[in-house]
């Protein structure tokens, strides 16, 4: 929490002003019973209606002032909370944009999303509450005590009794119920899990005729949840009645003790009536504060999560004295003794990798899952930096280039086509806002995307929903490819980008691509051997090491791993 305090600094004046207003508000709230007591003690006792009316008007004025103050506090609190949230949100977003994959792996994208959205919302709510209640409650409580003492010192023990009883009640309730609250959450998760499994496995469940079994499984989860919920509800249903009882009994106590004081002529009746109201206000203040103590730790989890992001520095940054690129690179990509270990992992995923990919050539990577293909390729755009060794473009260590220059020269197509909400056109133009219409058409043509784009009534203006959920996997891949083409970079990286395409589209696409990118360096990761059979250079990876390097023909003769893959995917005729 304290780590985020600096974000409140620009709003110091607003907050201080709010505190001042809260003081006035509390004074007003506490003055009312005083006036009432005056009406009873002086007005009624002496039968003076004029006095009663005069005091009444004063009360109205005080009430109005109180309302004005508390409305103004609302305004100040809202502006402060919304303002702090805005600043925090912008700072987190900017920070996350600068993160490398290492930081993304550490937090996970979904957690970063929650931190930028829900956690901030929590903070905003907390801030409003802090200003309006946390500051107000002690002022009201202390003020109440002072007023009550002024009326009668000898009855102050009643306030103590009330507060102790209420706090005791809250404490008991929460020690009984709190541990179960957490349990309920996991039980709800369990219930949801069973339902999700049932929905996802509907075919299997029906095929194996296990409906009864699944119903039993659900019933068990349902029963557990119901039982725990029941326990908590039974405990909590005692809360309100007990609280009411305590308050009522305290009132009776004040009257009982007070009446003795009145009859001993130590107190006026009006004062006793006012006293009841003070005690109630003090109790309210304590209730507010105890609610705060429950709420604050919850929200402070959010604050910690936000601070964690803000305090994390991106591990991949620009070189302090970067090499300036005068013109476009030639595109020779070389790995020199590159070893890479994921943070926290024991064993490296890549061992001393050495190769060069030349302009005008296609270099392909193949290997089983977990062999390190994607990791290798992710080192080129500096999503990660190698643990040892270096990656060179045209002989320059890529760490010496600015991130902007480096990435400007890369065309990268990920495994899963990632699109942004907008239109097909805005997605393609993501590569280059000023790209000409004709270039865009050409890119779509090469990526074999024209056919389906034209089949849509809106063509290039077809809306793409968030996450591209309204186009198929294959269409997403083709659009991602077109997007990369539109950038017309010198180096292309295809990370298994053809997997969702059928064989025919795959083949056509590669043919068109070859023509267009004759002078570029092409790096392809693939699972299908047919995709890469014609590459100029194939690199076979096995457990992070290069175990074969050469053309399809050469590898069939020399590389055991490659042959095994080939045999499983190709027919006899194709092998010979």
């Amino acid at each position, binding site marked *: 929490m304290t780590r985020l305090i600096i974000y409140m600094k620009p709003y110091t004046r607003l907050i201080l002003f709010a505190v001042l207003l809260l003081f006035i508000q509390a004074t007003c709230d506490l003055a009312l019973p005083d006036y009432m007591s005056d009406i009873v003690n002086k007005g009624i006792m002496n039968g003076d209606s004029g006095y009663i009316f005069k005091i009444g008007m004063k009360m109205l004025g005080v009430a109005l002032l109180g309302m004005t103050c508390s409305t103004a506090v609302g305004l100040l609190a809202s502006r402060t909370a919304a303002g702090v949230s805005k600043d925090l949100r912008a700072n987190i977003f900017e920070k996350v944009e600068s993160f490398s*994959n290492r930081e993304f792996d550490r937090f996970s994208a979904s957690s970063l999303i929650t931190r930028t959205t829900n956690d901030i919302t929590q903070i905003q709510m907390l801030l409003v509450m802090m200003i309006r209640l946390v500051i107000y409650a002690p002022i009201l409580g202390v003020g109440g005590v002072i007023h009550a003492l002024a009326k009668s010192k000898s009855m102050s023990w009643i306030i103590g009794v009330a507060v102790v009883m209420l706090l005791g009640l809250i404490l008991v309730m929460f020690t009984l119920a709190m541990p179960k609250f957490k349990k309920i959450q996991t039980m709800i998760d369990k219930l949801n899990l069973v339902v999700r499994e049932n929905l996802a496995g509907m075919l299997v469940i029906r095929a194996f005729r296990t409906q009864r079994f699944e119903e039993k499984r659900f019933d068990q989860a349902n029963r557990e949840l119901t039982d725990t919920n029941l326990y908590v509800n039974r405990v909590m249903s005692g809360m309100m009645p007990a609280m009411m009882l305590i308050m009522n009994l305290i009132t009776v106590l004040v009257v009982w003790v007070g009446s003795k004081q009145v009859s001993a002529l130590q107190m006026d009746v009006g004062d006793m009536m006012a006293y009841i109201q003070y005690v109630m206000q003090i109790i309210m203040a304590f209730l507010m504060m105890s609610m705060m103590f429950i709420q604050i730790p919850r929200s402070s989890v959010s604050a910690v999560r936000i601070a964690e992001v803000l305090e994390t520095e991106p591990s991949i940054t620009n070189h302090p004295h970067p090499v300036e690129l005068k013109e476009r690179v030639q595109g020779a990509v070389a790995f020199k003794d590159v070893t890479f270990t994921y943070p926290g992992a024991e064993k490296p995923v890549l061992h001393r990798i050495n190769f060069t990919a030349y302009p005008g050539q296609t270099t392909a990577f193949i290997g089983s899952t977990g062999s390190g293909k994607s990791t290798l390729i992710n080192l080129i755009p500096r999503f990660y930096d190698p643990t040892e060794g270096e990656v060179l473009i045209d002989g320059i260590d890529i760490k010496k280039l600015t991130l902007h220059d480096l990435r400007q020269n890369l065309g990268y197509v990920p495994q899963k086509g990632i699109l942004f909400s907008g239109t097909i056109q805005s997605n393609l133009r993501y590569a280059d806002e000023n790209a000409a219409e004709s270039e865009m058409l050409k890119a779509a043509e090469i990526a074999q995307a024209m056919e389906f784009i034209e089949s849509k009534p809106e063509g290039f203006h077809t809306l793409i929903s968030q996450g591209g959920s309204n186009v198929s996997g294959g269409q997403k891949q083709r659009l991602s490819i077109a997007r990369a083409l539109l950038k017309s970079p010198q180096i292309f990286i295809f990370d298994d980008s053809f997997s969702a395409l059928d064989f025919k589209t795959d083949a056509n696409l590669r043919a068109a691509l070859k023509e267009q990118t004759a002078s570029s360096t092409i790096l392809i990761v693939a699972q299908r051997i047919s995709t890469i059979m014609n590459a100029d250079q194939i690199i076979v990876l096995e457990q992070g090491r290069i175990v074969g390097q050469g053309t399809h023909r050469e590898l069939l003769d020399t590389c055991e791993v490659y042959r095994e893959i080939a045999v499983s995917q190709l027919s006899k005729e194709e092998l010979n």
Partner: protein
Amino acid sequence: MSENRPPRRQAGGFGPGPMVMAGGQKAKDFKGTMKELINYMTAYKTSFIIVLIFAVFSSVFSIVGPKILGKVTTKLFEGLIAYRLGTGLLTDFDYMRHFVLLLVTLYLISSIFSYLQNFIMSDVSMKITYQFRKDISEKINRMPLEYFDKKTHGEVLSRITNDVDTVSQTLNQSLTQIIFSVTTVIGVLTMMLSISWIMTLVALLVMPASSVIVILVVKKSQQFYKTQQKYLGHINGQIEENYSGHNIVQVFNGEKNAIRKFKELNEELYDSAWKSQFLSSMMMPIISFVGNIGYVAVCILGGYLAVKRIIEVGDIQAFIQYMRSFTQPLAQLSNISNILQSTAAAAERVFEFLNEKEASPDPLDSAPLDQVSGHVEFKNVKFGYREDKIVINDFSANIEPGQMIAIVGPTGAGKSTVVKLLMRFYDINEGEIYIDGHEIYSFSRDDLRSLFGMVLQDTWLYNTSILENIRYGSFDKSDQQVFAAAKAAHCDEFIKALPDGYHLVLNEEASNISQGQKQLLTIARTILADPKILILDEATSSVDTRTELLIQKAMANLMKNRTSFVIAHRLSTIRDADLILVMKDGDIIEQGKHEELLAQSGFYAELYQSQFSNCE
């Protein structure tokens, strides 16, 4: 997988507090739904009546309190005046003690009733919630699959969690609150009238004034709340998109643009956020101010009346207490229609689901099963997932026992349709399907499906041990039989290498074993089930080559002597098939043996060639 996630719950109370219900959804048929809900609860009629009685008792007992307390105060005041005038005793403590004891008893009884009422109500609501969930989960299994083609998993899930929760919460809290509020308002009103009708009138005049102001503020703040939610949605979209596409943003140097756009959205959000927050924060001061006006009015008027000796001093005190306990239930009552509406909307969605059409009933006597050899015949089958969109027009095929049928076609061509018809996941529109001469509709669904074994590419395992996952569906098989099946499916080796071997519990995403291993487990499961007819979906590229070899071997084991339908990706499988069904856009466009189809030089030939054509 994102569509499988339950929809994110509304960010709890962003902006307006509980006073402003965010618009609230409305039920299409309020009356009907309420009737249905009441029907659903008839089993708990007695409990409801008891709750009602207890609630009335509880509020009545607590309502008399202030009046009695007022009497005590009056007595005190009178004593004081009498003392000053020198005409009497200061205070009659016996009289006082009597009243104080009465008060303590009343409050105690009231609280006990109130607790009992809450207690019973939470029991009832929990039982109803349990029943709702149980009914829904059983309903899922009786519904035709078509339903789930139209609805996302998230929607179904949200009925079980969110909607049921909403209904349960109303039952548990709102219902008792409503009863309590109604009795309190009536009770308090009676007591106030018994003290002074003029003061009651003044107090009542204050109420409408406050409700008008509150309604105005609520309306205004709801507007801002809606805009705020809209902008919040925009900004969350921008965040999700940019974070999940982080690599793309970076490699296209899109960070600056993203930040610029984000700041614009953020500014818009700020503007509506503080306004919405401010307006909703105005509620409390306004309500308490109106309350204070009432307070002042009671003091002035009460003071005046007391001077005139029309009422007593204690009555003023009692009146102030009544006014205080009047506002809250009244605010609750004004919210009733909102609560009932949103409950009805939630209950309606639950009932809608429970009343959905179920799959047609099974025939009364199922055809005999014992000697099924695996002969399958399709005769003029016509089928469409929707009536107006027929995908299979006229399909006939005769498959001898032990034959292998390959289904090929590009992605998304609907290759699994035939299989789904065969197992009666969907019912055909026209034509017949026979197994060993029996129409499939003459079997009960369970009997029919017991003939089949199915291995899908989309492996389905659940959150339990590997052993139980293999045993799934054949619960009577011994551990030894499970091990044997695992061996036949080539899983034994890798399972034994896992931390707990067969007892390793798969985690929720089953991500503690690899995709290929999952596939092997489902094969073992099918081997254990020992079906007559097989349905196989061959693995695609996501599996590494060595595991893929194992899977091929395991599948070959499985297919021995069984009629099998294979959704094929591998050329070797396709070429060896006894019959190839070629599908495109959901329709079977060609069928025959490999050579025949090649000779036709149609779509199949083209598809086949392209798989290993060189791109030059």
